């Protein structure tokens, strides 16, 4: 064998890749889990066909008339019930609204106005009963349905899951791995050789980039095939944000791992870092739902700009130039965390 066959960076990357692919359970968590999330959440929040509205009509002299008027429309599921039973059905959500019909005709609606389904039922049922009683519409109303892709929950979710995967990958794939190597005294063994420290860190990071590519491609392809989620903007811009995100979270992972000496410490630190971002950074719902006062803080967390940029590229086709603020926030996080961790890093 000739001397030039031994590239330390190449060997460090190869070693990491081999260790990764030889642990099937780790491969599953990295590649399979995001797909399970897409499937589960995609099914749970799929766009449902117009739902039936459950209506209870309280038994009484005029009940049958109201029931007949409503049954003419198929979207109402109407049942007669005595007062006690009606209350029970309403309370358990089996019906959205109870109608009490009286002479006149007069209709009293019994419902919980804070439940969106009930509030909707109040309007629609009243409309149907008013028409049955002879009301004429003053204007003609027509419906145009929006079915454009990019507006569904699954479209919103996929960029969020990409961001979540990049965060978890950086923290586990860099932070946890390094602490594990420190505990096994492997870091100490490595620095007992002439190995260059920056090559070791570069090897960890580049191997992380390599396993991340299939993760992203599998998720995007699966979302496209199973749910028709399309990337509206350029794939190049998506890849730039993916790499920037991977870089930033590798830095965060490195910082978390820089001194920890036990797996308990590093797991705790990782949860402290990740938990606020899981909740605040808009993976599952828009971060704008939080009060305006905390928005500047939320926008400073590294996951928020990553997800908002991925959404802007994937859903709205924004270009890199339009997203420069996100690029800046991510780059600053990446550079600062790397610089701090290089300063604090303990090899033993």
């Amino acid at each position: 064998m000739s001397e030039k066959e031994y590239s330390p960076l190449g060997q460090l990357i190869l070693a990491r890749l081999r260790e990764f692919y030889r642990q099937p359970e780790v491969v599953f968590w990295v590649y399979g889990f995001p797909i399970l999330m897409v499937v589960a959440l995609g099914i749970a929040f799929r766009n449902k066909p117009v739902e039936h509205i459950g209506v209870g009509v309280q038994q009484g002299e005029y009940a049958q008339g109201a029931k007949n008027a409503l049954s003419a429309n198929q979207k109402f599921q109407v049942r007669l019930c005595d007062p006690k039973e009606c209350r029970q059905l309403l309370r358990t959500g089996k019906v959205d609204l109870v109608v009490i019909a009286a002479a006149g005709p007069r209709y009293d609606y019994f419902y919980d106005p804070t439940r969106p389904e009930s509030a909707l039922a109040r309007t629609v049922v009243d409309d149907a009963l008013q028409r049955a009683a002879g009301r004429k519409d003053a204007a003609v109303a027509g419906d145009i349905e929006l079915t454009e892709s990019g507006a569904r929950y699954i479209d919103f979710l996929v960029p969020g899951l990409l961001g979540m995967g990049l965060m978890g990958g950086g923290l586990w794939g860099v932070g946890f791995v390094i602490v594990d190597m420190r505990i096994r005294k492997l870091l100490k063994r490595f620095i007992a050789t002439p190995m260059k420290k920056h090559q070791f860190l570069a090897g960890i990071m580049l191997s992380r980039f390599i396993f991340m590519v299939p993760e992203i491609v599998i998720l995007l392809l699966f979302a496209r095939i199973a749910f028709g989620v399309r990337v509206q903007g350029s794939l190049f811009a998506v890849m730039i944000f993916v790499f920037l995100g991977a870089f930033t979270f590798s830095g965060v992972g490195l910082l978390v791992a820089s001194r920890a000496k036990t797996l308990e410490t590093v797991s705790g630190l990782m949860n402290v870092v990740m938990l606020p971002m899981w909740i605040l950074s808009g993976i599952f719902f828009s971060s704008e739902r939080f009060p305006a006062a905390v928005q500047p803080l939320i926008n400073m967390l590294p996951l928020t700009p990553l997800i908002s940029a991925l959404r802007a590229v994937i859903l709205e086709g924004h270009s890199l130039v339009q997203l420069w603020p996100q690029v800046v926030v991510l780059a600053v996080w990446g550079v600062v965390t790397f610089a701090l961790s290089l300063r604090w890093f303990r090899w033993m």
Partner: protein
Amino acid sequence: MPVAIRCSNLVKRYEGKTPVDAVRGLDLAVEEGECFGLLGPNGAGKTTTIEIIEGLLAPTSGDVEVLAMKWGRQDGEIRQRIGISLQETKLSEKLSVLETLTLFRSFYRQGLTPNEAMRRVSLEEKAAAWVGKLSGGQKQRLAVACALVGDPDLLFLDEPTTGLDPQARRQLWDIIRNFGKQGRTVMLTTHYMDEAERLCDRVAIVDHGRVITLGSPAELIASLGGEHIIDFSLTNGGGEGIPALLPEVLADLPGVQSVRSDDGQISLAVAEVHVTLPALLKRLKDKKRELASLTTRHASLEDVFVTLTGRHLRDGDAQAS
């Protein structure tokens, strides 16, 4: 002889609520081509000392020179020329033996091929086996191969055979001897006296962070004054009668160099067993004492340690904390 390692007045204090002085003024000079052993109980400061020399720990004070170079100035150059096996390293379980050695080889400018390193430690048949599947002895041989793969001039081994079965220990001793035959220097730590006696050209016995004696195993044993030891115990264990007087009672026997008594067992260091033994038996008969046991053996480094410290090497475990 050129010197491979020189330390002078090495001190290492671990700061904390109760500062611990692991090394307290240690001087050493290891010559090129010798196998040098640091022998001592656990907690004596052997690992701290070897790790300072390996450049993995900074001393609190004192000077270290390795291959005529200094840590902090020529680190890269020193690292190219030394090989290290740490006390506990868990190499990646999912990499094969060959992959592990290739990784370590890549860190060095020059060295053995990974196949040659495997051959030196007789692991060729395990080339494709994952590290996680190796036995304890095989893992330790791989650790030594990782230290050899850079073809070092100076090899450091910290407790290389701790926890191994006798056959695995002998295999490692052969590997270390073969390395020494090429005129290279070895420094090892051990708390096994037999390991130090069989492998080392010179031994420094370390206790409480200091070198308490230094020399070849033969010289150290000769310093006891007798190369043989007679161990015996008495039926009443010396519990009644005059145990305190016994050393004096025995010291004037012909050929006795020293007497020590430890937990009911009395050990005499003697020059010639056949001279002392009959006299001893006669003396015991005169004093109306009855033997419970009696053995004779060659003196060992253990006896040197016990004579110098009053403790056994293995007792160190209790004091290590």
